[in-house]
């Protein structure tokens, strides 16, 4: 029972991070019909640039809260800008090309970012300086740290904010209109290129924040960390129904829970043949099952032509 509650807690934390990243996939897919494979790598850029900025800020003698705030701001701005730049340079020229062209371009952009990051930050695992002292609480037999609580609260606030933006603001209506019919949205006086750029800006900013959470939670960052995280977040988006914003949130949370509980119990269930190092398997079992059984995802609308 203790394991169960502990893994539940870990799953919610992990799921919050997956959900933030999944939102970027789902928003871009919704508006462009493109699976932006470079999105996971922006999480990595967020983590590594935040780490670099944090070290600089600490080195010049700034306090921890100020350093964290500056590093976060810098990483979000950098990733947001990078996302907008990628869209402008790599995807916009292919707007009317067959769907396969931007997809392959996205894979190319992903590789470019990964090896660009390797050149800047090396291929080593880079550790967070031991500046974060987290407090641990006991709750129903499980250990919860203040960092975990902060991650979940932060992610929830961001997601609530995003839902409000999409549902209730003129920008959100413009985003949904562009998603449904970009041509008619243009006739309404909506600058659809700008709406798409803003979508990338928001998705990339969220990716940066997710990267910072991963950095603080696991204490390390690495030039290739965005690959697996990106695949899992993509799986979460598919699970929730790609194109659906609430779906990405639900899918992220569920995937985090499935992975945590799976990793917690896989040893017992298989009599020790497989250990928790097989945790990554669960995400892809989920991906396969969803694609076979419910390709539209949990909250998605079935549409054969887009899949």
């Amino acid at each position, binding site marked *: 029972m203790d394991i169960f509650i502990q893994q539940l807690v870990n799953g919610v934390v992990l799921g919050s991070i997956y959900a933030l990243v999944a939102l970027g996939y789902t928003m871009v897919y919704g508006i462009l019909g493109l699976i932006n494979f470079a999105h996971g790598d922006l999480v990595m850029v967020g983590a590594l640039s935040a780490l670099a900025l944090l070290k600089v800020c600490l080195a010049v003698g700034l306090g921890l809260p100020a350093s964290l705030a500056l590093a976060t701001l810098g990483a979000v701005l950098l990733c947001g800008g990078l996302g907008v730049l990628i869209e402008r340079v790599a995807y916009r020229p292919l707007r009317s090309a067959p769907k396969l062209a931007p997809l392959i371009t996205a894979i190319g952009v992903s590789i470019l970012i990964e090896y660009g990051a390797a050149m800047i930050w090396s291929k080593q695992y880079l550790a967070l300086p031991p500046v974060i002292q987290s407090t641990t609480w006991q709750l129903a037999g499980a250990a919860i740290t203040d960092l975990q609580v902060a991650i979940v609260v932060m992610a929830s606030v961001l997601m609530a904010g995003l839902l409000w933006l999409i549902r209730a603001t*003129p920008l959100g*209506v*413009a985003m*949904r*209109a562009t998603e*449904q*019919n970009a*041509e*008619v*949205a*243009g*006739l*309404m*006086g*909506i*600058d*659809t290129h700008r709406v798409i750029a803003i979508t990338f800006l928001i998705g990339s900013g969220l990716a940066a924040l997710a990267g910072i959470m991963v950095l603080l939670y696991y204490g390390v960052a690495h030039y290739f960390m965005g690959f697996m995280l990106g695949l899992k977040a993509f799986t979460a988006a598919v699970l929730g129904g790609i194109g659906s914003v609430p779906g990405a949130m639900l899918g992220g949370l569920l995937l985090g829970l499935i992975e945590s509980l799976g990793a917690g119990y896989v040893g017992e269930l298989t009599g020790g043949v497989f250990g928790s190092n097989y945790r990554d398997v669960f995400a892809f079992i989920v991906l396969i099952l969803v694609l076979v059984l419910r390709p539209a995802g949990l909250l998605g609308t079935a549409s054969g032509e887009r899949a």
Partner: protein
Amino acid sequence: MTALPAPDDRAVTDSTAARAVAAPVLEVRDLHVSYGGVAALKGVDLAVSAGARVCVIGANGAGKSSLLRALAGLEPLAGGSICWRGERIDHLPSFERARRGISLVPEGRGVFARLTVQENIRIGGHARRGQSMTTDIDRVYSLMPRLAQRRTQLAGTLSGGEQQMLAIGRAMVAAPELLLLDEPSMGLAPMMVQTIFEVIAGIAQAGVTILLVEQNARLALRSTTWAWVLDGGRVLLSGDSSGLADDPRVRAAYLGD
């Protein structure tokens, strides 16, 4: 033909560079549009004055929709020019033209199916950049009470006629100076067509310039004062609408007499 106004011998000209009046707000010169090398418009000239009610009639494939799409900025020009209130607009994207007061109600209505009726109507005001649109929204709902009843429904759940009303209402909220209507009667029951055209007449009365494209030539000629007949991407005839309605060529080809 009894429904049409009495014959009028002033009209019918064969001039292709037909001008509805002096001092036009919209001036189209030698317009060419092609799709992958196939020419849809082969040099169309037209001029429309402020507040006029004009139409373009012609058979399927004559280039009517291409003309409206080119005016609204949805098709690139292969040649020619479009001037709106003295400004060349042919290089501007569609959203810039919408912000200059040109509003197209596209063929097939183009309502946002997964937005509510209310959201569809409000989005019409996007082109106005922050001006208050409450009066216009109220006007839309009072003109088309069906939309008011359904304001929280998703637009995709409306009937074809209601969607057409919504598309026109959405355009009204944009407070356009030029309203381009692409086949507003298409696929609608006669009662609904009548309602839609009453709404259009109301908009025209408020001083909005109307350019209507219709396959239903009889209806189009009855609702406008000047018309162009498009055939194979060229202007075949132009003249005032009542005159054209009596032209034997128009009657034979487009009015089914």
